[in-house]
């Protein structure tokens, strides 16, 4: 049962930094040309020289206000868009420069989870069809294997197998995001990019999904790139935090470092925006 998620190898324990990096981004630039009717039109620099490194089994959170280039970064890393300049090294291979055939093989190892699970799951399909889509596209598995894989994936993300025949529209937001995660795990990716994956959910569900992500990280050794505007969630999930502003990474450091000694104005603003309890909670009764 090579494909079974439960038998996935745990490749690295969280936090080990003496291994070669899983992902290394160097000087990434993405430039959108806005064509206009008259004249040359203007250019929009969505990414302006972004560099960072992610080690296997760790989580890097990318935090920034909207329009800072976070989602463009996610699209470039997931090979959905090609960067204007720069390199993306994934397991030592440059996925920007590599030829299409190799990229096709590398691509499934980097999976993207979208912000709105309502639009990332085709509403015309059933849960089972959605879950098996990546496996069907690989064309390597028999019917029986796929069935087993589906049930182990559902179990892993805590979804009841009773859902499989229903459309995703009958699922709650949290259940949908669990389904999206299960689908992304089907191809045993090494890197999961979570593009605002918790932002569309309400608080208690956010916490549940966040815990699921941590659980998956410890059991499967997943590596996350967690893109968010919520600094609190970033601190909860991430080992390292990169703060982005206007297409640049303005501050990069461990979670504690960012919390305790914010250097850049954007970071301070994000910190100030965090909701704070003004009163201590009453002590629990003895």
């Amino acid at each position, binding site marked *: 049962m090579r494909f079974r998620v439960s038998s996935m190898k745990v490749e690295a324990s969280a936090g080990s930094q003496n291994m070669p990096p899983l992902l290394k981004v160097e000087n990434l630039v993405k430039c959108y040309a806005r064509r206009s009717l008259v004249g040359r039109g203007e250019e929009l620099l969505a990414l302006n020289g972004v560099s960072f490194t992610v080690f296997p089994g760790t989580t890097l959170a990318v935090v920034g206000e909207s329009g800072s280039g976070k989602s463009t970064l996610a699209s470039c890393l997931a090979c959905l868009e090609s960067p204007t300049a720069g390199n993306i090294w994934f397991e030592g291979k440059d996925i920007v420069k590599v030829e299409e055939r190799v990229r096709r093989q590398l691509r499934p190892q980097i999976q*993207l989870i*979208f912000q709105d699970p309502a639009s*990332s799951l085709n509403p*015309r399909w059933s849960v089972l069809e959605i879950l098996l889509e990546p496996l069907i596209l690989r064309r390597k598995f028999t019917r029986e294997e796929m069935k087993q894989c589906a049930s182990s994936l559902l179990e892993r993300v805590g979804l009841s197998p009773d859902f499989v025949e229903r459309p995703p529209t009958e699922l709650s937001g949290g259940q949908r995001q669990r389904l999206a995660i299960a689908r992304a795990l089907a191809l045993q990716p090494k890197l999961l990019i979570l593009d605002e994956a918790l932002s569309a959910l309400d608080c208690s569900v956010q916490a549940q999904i966040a815990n699921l992500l941590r659980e998956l990280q410890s059991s499967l050794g997943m590596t996350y790139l967690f893109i968010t505007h919520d600094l609190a969630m970033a601190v909860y999930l991430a080992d390292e935090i990169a703060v982005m502003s206007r297409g640049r990474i303005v501050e990069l450091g461990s979670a504690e470092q960012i919390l305790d000694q914010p250097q850049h104005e954007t970071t301070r603003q994000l910190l100030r925006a965090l909701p704070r309890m003004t009163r201590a909670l009453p002590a629990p009764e003895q």
Partner: protein
Amino acid sequence: MRVRRTFAKWLVVLGVLHGMVVCAGFFAPYDPVEQDRQSPYLPPMRLHLLDAHGHLHVRPFVYALRLRESSFDQFEEDTTEPHPVKFFLRGARYRLLGFLPLRMHFFGGENTRIYLLGTDAYGRDQFSRLLFGGQVSLFAGLLGAGVTLFIGWSIGAVAGYYGGWRDSLLMRVAELFLALPWLYLLFALRAFLPLAVSPLEAFFLITAVLGAVGWARPARLVRGVVLSAKERDFVRAARGFGASNGYLLRRHILPETSSVLLTQAAILIPQYVLAEMTLSFLGLGVPEPVPSWGNLLSGLQQYSVLVSYWWMYLPALAMVPFFLGYLGLASSFEERGAVYKIESRIWGM
């Protein structure tokens, strides 16, 4: 729920009408080209249940028509003898659905011919011609709409999905086609071709031209749907699993165009039936003696017919429910689309 019910209602109406047209041989009492030279321009016969003596009959009957004295075109009912309407009786030979040879007809008269919608200049039964003419006109409409939708769908999908210069090129051509005065184009094309063509040739010619001319609007609509569908997250996700362009189009993007296609079909079919009628009415379509809805009405071009024989209008009246049916279907498709959108916005966040 209400929308679904009106939708079902229109579907039933159209189903019955199309069923009658498809099985024209069975529902029509006579052969559409059979002439009854003794009775040209006979007015419609009325169905009676009460006879001249006030007796009630269980079976509906008609009275034979005779010329009124000292008149040459006024008819009156000969009330001496009622002719009951017989059901499921043997009559003219026909082929059901084009292959099944049968002689059974739904209704008819035994000693007299029954003309429900009167007769034309050659004494041909207008009711039979209406049903058989529907076969030509409706089939032309369906086939023409099918060709148009296929062309429009393919071009729209290519333009929307691949974008770039293909999109620009195809959409400029589409605009050109939208700007063409296509009725005059049809005239010109028809004038260019030999005057005497066989009915079958004429039929396929009309359908081909109709089909090839109208693709621009559906193409633009499909393009719009494809443009928005290809940016949906589930398409991007599938791309991330290594999906090919063909797979994305087939499994994710083209299914999104189905409601546009259905609505367009419901609009295009009656439009093309009307176009066929226009051509046949002007004598450029399917030639006599083969009936079509257009040349059924072409008798009305003569002033004398227009003022003297009011029943020649009846076929036009009989076509109204057909067009209304398609209109209703189109609008309920549209409403249903809107409901679906609202529902998915509410339930799908």
